[in-house]
Each structure stands twice: as structure tokens, then as C-alpha cells.
């Protein structure tokens, strides 16, 4: 998770907590202080909740791991760049090593 996505997620959760607390207080006042108990939730609490939910989803999607290409060729290319090719065994065949040449090379560097 990158810093920005974590920040967005934490901010969204704080907003959501605040909205939930506000809704709780609102219903509390409705029950204890007023006679009109059919009032709907104030528009600012509704807006806060919806914005918080949208921001949370955005933060989660931004912070998700990158998708990997599903095509085998592209996937193998990416792995090869990291040095973990699925076909690396084909590139290292000791049976084809030219030992004489390698020894000559070694001898020339020693001089």
C-alpha cells in the first residue's frame, strides 16, 4: 500500500466514524428531546457517509497490488526481467560447456 492510499483509507474511516457518531446523536436527540420522531437523517450526515464510502473504495483500489498480465508471453517476460524465468533451465546446460576454452580464459587472466 502506498502512502496516499493509506491516507485516503484512514481519512475515509475517520469520516465514516464521525458520520456514524452523528447519526447516533441525531437519533438520540430525536428520541429524548423532540416530539416529532419521523424526521429523516440530515443531509450532511448522508453526504458524509456516502463520501466516506466512496473514498474508502478509492483508497482500497489505489492501494491494491498491481494486476499481472494474464498472457503467458508477457508474464514470462516480466519474470525474466527479474531473473526468475520459467525456462531458465534451458539456458544453463553444463553438458555444452567448453571446458578447454574456459580453462584457457582462466589461464590468460592469471598471467
Amino acid at each position, binding site marked *: 500500500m502506498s502512502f496516499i492510499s493509506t491516507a485516503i483509507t484512514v481519512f475515509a474511516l475517520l469520516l465514516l466514524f464521525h458520520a456514524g457518531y452523528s447519526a447516533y446523536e441525531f437519533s438520540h436527540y430525536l428520541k429524548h428531546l423532540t416530539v416529532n420522531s419521523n424526521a429523516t437523517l440530515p443531509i450532511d450526515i448522508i453526504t458524509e457517509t456516502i463520501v466516506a*464510502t466512496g473514498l474508502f473504495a478509492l483508497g482500497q*483500489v489505489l492501494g*491494491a*497490488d498491481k*494486476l499481472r498480465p494474464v*498472457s503467458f508471453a508477457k508474464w514470462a517476460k516480466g519474470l525474466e526481467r527479474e531473473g526468475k524465468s520459467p525456462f531458465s533451465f534451458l539456458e544453463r546446460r553444463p553438458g555444452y560447456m567448453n571446458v578447454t576454452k574456459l580453462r584457457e580464459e582462466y589461464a590468460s587472466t592469471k598471467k
Partner: protein
Amino acid sequence: MDEKERKQAIYPISTESLQQNGKNVYYIRSVTSTIFGVSAGILGLESYYGFLFYFAGTAFVSLLLFLLLARGQPTEYFASANDIWIGNALTGLSSFVLTWTLFYGLVDA
């Protein structure tokens, strides 16, 4: 060998990355649907409106996945383009209902 099989043979698919992408999307769907439940409870939604809220939220997450995660090319990362729109759409429904009912009760003083 039909057209689809021939295409599969020429352009093989890496099951490993297919699984990894599926896991990614599954995680996002579960976490966001839990939070959708919290908001539905706070908003005090009842009956069909709660489920409508869930489907609207899921559609929003699908859009975000399509635009931000798949960068407009879902076939590059999934077996079919539908996987990002309707795949896993119902996986979070049970956790949604759980948090929805919980927060509906919590918010009511």
C-alpha cells in the same frame, strides 16, 4: 479444434497470474462490501434500498477496478472482460448484510 482452442494454443494464458488477479479483486470486493454495510446501517436503509445500495456500491467498485487497476483493458488481466464487472459481485453480500444489520442497530440510540 475450434477458433477458441486455437487461440488458446497460440496465446497461452498464465494461470498463476490469473489466480493472483482473482485474489486481488476478491480481497477488494470483501473489504469494500463490509464498509458498504456500515454505511447502509448508518444511513438506516431498510429492505430493498439496502440491497440497491449494495449493488450501486459494487458497480462503483467495478468502475474503479476497470479504470484504475485494469487501466481500461480488462482482457489483459482477466480471462474475459466480464470478470471485472460481474465476477465476484455477490461474494461480499453476506458480510454486507452482517455489518448492515449490526450498524443499523448500533446507530439507533
